[in-house]
């Protein structure tokens, strides 16, 4: 399902990469005008999160087109498994939708031993299946979203929903909540949002890749949740924006921190992310961001490598590739409905990549 859904944009991205060689070179990265360094020949492997996989797949293919001496493999085995494989040094880089926890970092030799960079940015939609209520017609506020997922609001005709949607005819129908049954970064970002906007959620449920849901059915993967919502009248659930757009689901306008109702978009995610200048692997939450255009349920996805590389050639190719991912490579994210990293984050990422060393000397050499 998932593969099918993402196949088209990936193909589009590849075509663009294939025939747009010159435009790629002239496109301006977010910071400065630095061009990607030419890497030495190497074969890199990475593993981890499934959410950014379409982007990584398109990016590594395009990178190989540009620098044929470097091949990059990526396995979307889940963030947890990716972190484990990096801990065991089976892979060269790991990927996770949530940065390393203290215990995970300790297993890798402590926080200074690992460099984590934000690779892309995603936002989530609240999709629903309500007859007669078209795309973008339903308006949801932080209170009603929390109420629905806490099982306080159980009918679509609830007064709280009616008050926010005076012009919409809401049926007297049970609300059927759908959530992820598998652990996922998508769930982490969504429960992070709920914990931020609802103190009751924070104390009763909390945030995590898997939580103890007060209500609703579980379905596996973004594709599974999307199918369940499309299948079930009265259903509602959180889905990555890309899936909503690709499967033409109906999604709600969400009230953001500034009080504006926004339709989640990649641009909205970038707007939200750029509100937080101090974002780091230990302070990474960007949900419920201020700003009039901010999409409220947004989050970064992360890549991680060891600070001290054991192989100079491989290490150089690795940091060169990651540098390209956060600069020129961002265009492939945008094609797939991921959001462009805000310029402050690109600066942070490049600074972090410069700390990756072999035998005490930095591996990344870019002029900026």
């Amino acid at each position: 399902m998932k593969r099918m859904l993402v196949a088209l944009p990936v193909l589009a991205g590849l075509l663009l990469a294939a025939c747009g060689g010159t435009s790629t070179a002239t496109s301006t990265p977010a910071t400065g005008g630095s061009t990607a360094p030419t890497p030495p020949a190497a074969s890199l492997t990475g593993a981890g999160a499934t959410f950014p996989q379409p982007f990584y797949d398109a990016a590594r293919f395009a990178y190989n087109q540009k620098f044929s001496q470097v091949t990059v493999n990526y396995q979307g085995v889940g963030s947890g498994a990716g972190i484990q494989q990096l801990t065991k040094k089976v892979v060269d880089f790991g990927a996770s939708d949530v940065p390393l926890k203290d215990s995970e970092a300790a297993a890798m030799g402590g926080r200074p031993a690992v460099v984590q960079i934000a690779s892309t940015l995603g936002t989530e939609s609240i999709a629903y299946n309500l007859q007669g209520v078209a795309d973008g017609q339903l308006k949801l506020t932080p209170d009603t979203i929390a109420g629905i997922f806490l099982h306080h609001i159980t009918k679509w005709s609830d007064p709280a929903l009616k008050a926010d949607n005076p012009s919409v005819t809401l049926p007297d129908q049970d609300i059927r909540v759908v959530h992820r049954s598998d652990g996922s970064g998508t769930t982490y970002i969504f429960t992070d949002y709920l914990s931020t906007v609802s103190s009751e959620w924070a104390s009763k449920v909390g945030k995590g890749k898997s939580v103890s849901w007060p209500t609703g059915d579980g379905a596996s993967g973004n594709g599974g949740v999307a199918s369940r919502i499309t299948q079930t009248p009265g259903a509602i659930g959180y889905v990555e924006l890309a899936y909503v757009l690709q499967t033409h689901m109906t999604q709600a306008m969400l009230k953001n921190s500034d009080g504006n109702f926004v339709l989640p978009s990649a641009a909205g995610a970038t707007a939200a992310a750029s509100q937080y200048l101090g974002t780091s692997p230990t302070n990474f939450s960007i949900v419920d961001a201020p700003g009039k255009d901010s999409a409220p349920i947004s989050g970064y996805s992360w890549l991680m490598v060891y600070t001290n590389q054991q192989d100079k050639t491989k290490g150089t190719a690795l940091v060169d590739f990651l540098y390209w991912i956060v600069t020129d490579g961002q265009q492939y994210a945008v094609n797939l409905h991921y959001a462009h990293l805000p310029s402050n984050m690109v600066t942070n990422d490049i600074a972090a990549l410069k700390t990756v060393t072999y035998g005490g000397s930095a591996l990344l050499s870019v002029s900026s």
Partner: protein
Amino acid sequence: MGKGTAERVAPAPLVGIGRQRRLISGDDVFHAIAFAAAALILLVAAVFVIALVIPALPAITRFGLGFLVSRSWDPVQSQFGALAAIYGTVVTSAIGLLIAFPIGLAAALFLAEESGVRLLRGPLSFAIELLAGIPSVVIGLWAFFILTPIMRDTVDPFLNHTLGFLPLFQGSPSGYGYLTAGLVLAIMVLPIMIALSRDVIRAVPRALREASLALGATNAETIWSVILPYARVGITGAVLLSLGRALGETIAVTMVIGNRNEISSSLFASGYTLPSVIANEFTEAVGNVYLGSLFYLGVILVLITIVVNVLARLLVWRFTGSEPTAA
């Protein structure tokens, strides 16, 4: 099916015995290879059990047997319990067998007995083989897209309307849950149920059957008072083998059970099963206790399945005197 005796014939030697015997007997070589293969399987089984229990230890030491009766499954607080999943596994398997048993037995009688429409027997046997061969993920896909809307819009409302006074059929149906999962399991175990029952019914001595008919009993009376009592043990074995299959079925059930860690008296409600929890959560189960809890669920599932399977095989062996060929 029912070719157990044929399989026991020793295989022909691969090369001419006459020339080989002077150096090493071909039989000896074959014996050694067969022994090594058998020993390897024992070794694999032992390693498997050890490899399952060791990762489960963090959860076993932390929750003990209380794990079996705890309803909480909260990865945030690191509190885990298996009760809802055990309940869901038992309920869905029971529904599956309750539906599959009468249908399977009737079909087996039809196939095994001399009487009956001969013309139908061939296509019916073929249909059973076909059903047995469908991968469970395909059945799950069908159930997800075709069966659940039918359950939600037709079957469940009908049950609610006619039998709604029972707690089993109350609540508003979503199309997903215990009943739908049970129905899917019924479809999946029917081939085993039919094939094994047919074999044990066929194994009823012809003389008994004919004696009953000669005494003036009708066909129905013969089946009811001679054949079924005689085949009872074997049929029980068939039921238990079907149960073993139902308990472990994962993907098709996961697609329609609803994946909700709750215990509900209504069959329309969503629930969870042991294999579904494992399949859903293993990729992102970080931390020893969380992952250990999933392995603990695995240990419970393996124990239940082993007990059921051993019981079943003992019963079927005792009756037919040959190894049952699982469909």
